């Protein structure tokens, strides 16, 4: 267990440094956007990683409702939280890219960025709900809300897609195939970020397990004290 963790941490560190080198130095400079385009190597893999994590959240929420296995609940919580962290990266780096390229910080019609923002809002509200809900019912209602959130995503996507066709705004990345060299760097970065996500989730899982154990112990202790 400990060994596995150390190994993963080392692999992640190596992979991330290699990916950083690839993104900043090895990858060819994009012709129209210049070096700013390199933000792409952090922005896009973060988005994909966040989507993967939200997918895990959705699946484990369903599994929890069927099996009532606390592990599924922990996985749902952890994937949502780490997903929000990666989603935050996407939302922060997005405008930093948009500003020099489009000349504006935010394009409300941009389908991917806006969908990600809505996704971010949904999962933040999910995390707040987990925090605010009382007693032993948190896992069930959280799982229910997670399912609502996940089902909302395609609707958000379509609504923004149609919104954009009515209110045209700059769109990039779509159309035109990616230079194979760039695609390669992109995939390496994605692999690195996936490892990082795994690592963060691992730490968060350990924390959650420990917290629950402490809570349980406290529950019994408080009862014993009250009976004195």
């Amino acid at each position: 267990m400990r060994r596995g963790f150390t190994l993963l941490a080392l692999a992640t560190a190596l992979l991330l440094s290699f990916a950083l080198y690839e993104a900043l130095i090895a990858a060819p400079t994009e012709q129209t956007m210049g070096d700013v385009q390199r933000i792409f190597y952090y922005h896009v893999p973060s988005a994909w990683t966040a989507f993967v994590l939200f997918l895990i959240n959705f699946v484990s929420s369903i599994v929890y409702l069927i099996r009532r296995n606390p592990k599924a609940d922990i996985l749902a919580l952890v994937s949502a939280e780490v997903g929000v962290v990666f989603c935050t990266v996407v939302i922060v780096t997005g405008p930093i890219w948009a500003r020099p390229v489009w000349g504006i910080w935010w394009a409300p019609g941009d389908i991917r960025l806006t969908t990600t923002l809505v996704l971010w809002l949904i999962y933040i509200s999910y995390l707040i709900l987990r925090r605010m809900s009382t007693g032993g019912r948190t896992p069930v209602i959280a799982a229910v809300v997670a399912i609502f959130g996940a089902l909302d995503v395609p609707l958000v996507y379509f609504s923004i897609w149609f919104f954009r066709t009515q209110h045209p705004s700059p769109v990039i990345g779509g159309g035109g195939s990616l230079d194979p060299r760039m695609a390669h760097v992109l995939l390496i970065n994605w692999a690195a970020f996936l490892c990082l996500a795994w690592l963060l989730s691992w730490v968060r899982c350990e924390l959650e397990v420990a917290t629950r154990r402490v809570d349980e112990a406290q529950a019994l202790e408080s009862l014993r004290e009250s009976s004195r």
Partner: protein
Amino acid sequence: MNSMHYLYAAYIATWLIHGSYLTILVRKYARVRREMERLRK
């Protein structure tokens, strides 16, 4: 070459976000560990 600033800003922001999340996790973990020790007594 002004665009380089944006590039660095984005990369630094990314690492700041991940770094602060990790710090929060480690801190919470330390607190839980202390609590565990206290309960064991």
